[in-house]
């Protein structure tokens, strides 16, 4: 059994380093895409290996191997030790204590997506993609895609961890591109950049009902070709839940990663405008802003039993009533600022990457603005922006600029005409300070993102954000 192998390895690491952990990861994935009535992408992959991380003095070393035998694991341990010892000497810093992780955790799902036949999957995609091709020749590309993955992990450490976990995730989406030769527009559903994913089974894909939404998606892409350009100015903006999820991800989630605050990511992902000393006192946004980090949320991609340092999953407040209350941390960063325990945010991308501070599911709490219809009715003038198209933010997570696929004018409490190429920009605390309404629980849902990059070598991580549509005042729009 692989956990026994890892536990034996940790016994061999004792006395050779201050700390060691070994993870075995087995990842299986399937990706399918249909374009123009034919299968555009059909790829299945699997990868398995062991990653060993050690601490010698103040230095860390990590080695990964596809050789999952005892000899292979021992060779990886030896290489990790050699790598750590070759680093210039650094001061040993403490790690927060951890209760030994023991047991098994699995994400919930009803129908294992790997038990669904290829024929059924393709039939769903062919139907959805065909419905995108409405006959309008301005639709130059139409795509329907699915992806499913399963990850089984085992972890042992010299701090007593010996646990196993299994995550099953799936999702999909559709997109249409329209062009009139000079202009190019696209629309997607239910989420841009590949679709909406969840820690769930095939039932999640069926619930998306891709084919039913396809005609609208294609028609909106065409309609955008002749829509007026988003006007430049300052106005009220209502963001749909999907765009708000990305706004939270970029301007709150990353900014509250404690390793960034401590300058550990300064050479790549960047730092943060938030300082460790701001915890408990910084006004991050308006009183409407309540943000939770929750790795226990069922169906969310950032949920687990234990993080990749063996710290049990947690739910805690990051921002309450607009005031900063917490940060996302691992054992090392938490100890560096005097926290009693880790935020359980150490996550690694596969067996060949080491755990770094990553978001768990960072969500905005539902507010009191009722339904989206209620919120629009309560808005005299502004823009309703849907579905992310582009995103960019500075290395301290302050100045941002986002574009969405579509915008709709709001006049007199009603949605009006479409505008194309909508964009908005702001400065993080000012923008969140302008938040004056968040829709209620009936509009709140999880938005699963699968493309969060961080670390060197690069790591891609999946995470979900709970969000409901929200309104912001005095926002700069039409900047792109």
């Amino acid at each position, binding site marked *: 059994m692989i956990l026994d192998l890892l536990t034996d390895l940790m016994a061999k690491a004792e006395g050779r380093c201050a700390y060691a952990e070994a993870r075995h990861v087995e990842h299986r994935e399937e990706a399918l895409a249909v374009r123009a009535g*034919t*299968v*555009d992408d*059909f790829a*299945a*992959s*699997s*990868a398995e*290996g062991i990653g060993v991380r050690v601490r010698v003095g*103040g*230095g*860390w*070393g*990590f*080695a*990964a*191997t*596809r050789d999952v035998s005892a000899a292979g694991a021992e060779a990886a341990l030896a*290489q*990790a030790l050699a*790598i*750590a010892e*070759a*680093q*210039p000497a*650094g001061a040993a810093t403490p790690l927060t204590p951890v209760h030994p992780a023991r047991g098994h955790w699995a994400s919930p799902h009803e129908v294992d997506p790997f038990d669904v036949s*290829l*024929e059924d999957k*393709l*039939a769903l995609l*062919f139907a959805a993609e065909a419905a995108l091709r409405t006959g309008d020749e301005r639709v*130059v*590309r139409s795509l329907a895609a699915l992806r499913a993955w399963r990850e089984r992990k085992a972890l042992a450490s010299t701090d007593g961890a010996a646990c196993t976990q299994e995550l099953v995730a799936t999702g999909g989406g559709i997109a249409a591109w329209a*062009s009139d*030769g000079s202009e*190019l527009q696209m629309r997607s559903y239910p989420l841009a950049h590949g679709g909406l994913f969840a820690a769930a089974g095939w039932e999640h894909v069926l619930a998306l009902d891709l084919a039913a939404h396809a005609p609208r998606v294609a028609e909106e892409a065409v309609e955008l070709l002749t829509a007026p350009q988003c006007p430049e100015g300052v106005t009220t903006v209502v963001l749909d839940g999907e765009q708000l999820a990305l706004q939270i991800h970029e301007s709150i989630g990353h900014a509250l990663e404690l390793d960034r605050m401590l*300058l*550990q990511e*300064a*050479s*790549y992902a960047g*730092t943060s405008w938030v300082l460790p000393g701001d915890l408990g006192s910084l006004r991050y946004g308006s009183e409407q802003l309540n943000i939770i980090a929750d790795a226990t949320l069922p169906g969310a991609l950032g949920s687990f039993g234990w993080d990749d340092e063996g710290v049990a999953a947690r739910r805690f407040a990051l921002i309450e009533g607009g005031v900063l209350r917490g940060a996302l941390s691992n054992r090392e960063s938490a100890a560096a600022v005097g926290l009693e325990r880790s935020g359980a945010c150490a996550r690694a991308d596969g067996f*060949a990457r080491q755990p770094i501070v990553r978001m768990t599911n960072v969500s905005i709490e539902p507010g009191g603005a009722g339904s989206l219809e209620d919120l629009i009715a309560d808005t005299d003038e502004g823009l309703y922006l849907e579905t992310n*198209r*582009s995103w*960019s*933010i*500075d*290395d*301290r997570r302050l*100045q941002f*600029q986002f*574009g969405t696929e579509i915008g709709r004018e709001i006049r007199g409490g009603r949605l009006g005409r479409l505008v194309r*190429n909508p*964009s908005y*920009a702001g400065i993080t605390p000012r923008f969140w300070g302008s938040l004056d309404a968040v829709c209620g629980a009936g509009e709140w849902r999880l938005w699963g993102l699968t493309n969060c990059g961080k670390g*060197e*070598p*690069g790591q891609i991580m999946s995470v979900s954000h709970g969000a409901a549509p929200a309104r912001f005042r005095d926002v700069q729009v039409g900047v*792109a």
Partner: protein
Amino acid sequence: MSESVLDLAERALGQATGEAQATVTRERSLVSRFARSTPTQATGVDDTSVSILRVHDGHTGAAGTNELSDDGLRDVAARADAAARAAAAAAGEPGEYPGLPEPAPARAHDGFDAATAALDPAVAGAALAAAFAVCAERDLEAFGIWTAGVVETAIASSAGVRARDAVTDAYMKVVARDAAGRTGWAADAAVAAGALDPEAIARRAAAKVTSAEPVELAPGEYPVVLEADAVGTLLDFLGALAFNGLAHAEGRGALDGRLGTRVAASSINLSDSPRFARTLPRAFDLEGVPKNPIPLIQDGVAHRVVHDTRSAARAGGGARSTGHAVAPGGSGFGPHPANLVLIGGGAADETELAAPIDRGLYVTRFWYVNAAHEKRTLLTGMTRDGTFLIEDGRITRPVRDVRFTDSALRILEATEALSARQRLVADAAFYGRRFATGVVCPALRAGGFRITGQTI
């Protein structure tokens, strides 16, 4: 003696039936990170993976694994076969994939260095120590990475392709930072780790940190000098937005209807040149098609786009793969030119480029660049780690980082001068399997660079 990657590819192909391609990739790499002049993370990777592409009636299916036993390879071949057959059955008619490329001779290159392939962690340790020492001289802290890797690729196909390539790459970057948070950045990439000079990289980074308070710059259009690192970022985006043959064939590309027309200043000569000096060469693409130089923009006139087998079939009109497949069978995102080279000009250096500018901007590098409108090559992003004001022809004071929103093609159209010296610009992010690429380019001066915001 361990099995060679080509022997492994042969063994994998032997498990497949019908028209198929086996691709083997073996990576060994080392990354050492540092922050606050202290080592933070060090990662060693040793992994080998096999993918099998199966072609059935013009439809493709692919499967991959790093479980290299005969049973593992047999399983992956069966999954690829099932995928291709299911795709054909679902479509109900022949697909458009024209078939695996025929064998063709690939030219040798000098992209492998045996000493780098040894991946000695002590070399990394010494590089970090050198950077720490340089920064300490000026009371600065050093942040960055040193990394080196060796990647072997082998392809065996039922069409008769038998190809093996081995490349090494090395990269180091240093961000020097003072107590007030002012930063300077420098980086170099090369085939050989021995070609990197950690001390010199750190000195370049440290020289960008000045004690002056950064000034603000109002939104507007400014003349700009872009260092090679910033130019490389723009060109890499152009590779995806303008020269991607799939996007072009579908009418989504920025050069749709513009090939053969002037799209840039006459001084712009851009090519994909896999064996150009200082580039990171490769012998063939991931369909086994040999890589050869391709002119993309000549004297400012858009000349060609690049293709893999799939995009060439989509384009029709006799288009053929140009050796730019980034996945076996071609990627759904299209081909990509991974060896872009922009020819330099007559300016001695960045200082000479700045000389004619009364008031403008000097940019070391861009950060978090993303496409705001793909067909217009409209990009937005921030400056970072060395943004300065140009006043009366001289690079003077630091500027608080600004946001630009501008078209990459427009910047090339407004290019007034280029430096003679080119650099290999890489970012070494390495998401997934290590696939080192870089752009060889000079610094340039352009007019009307559009600033749309500024951080605080």
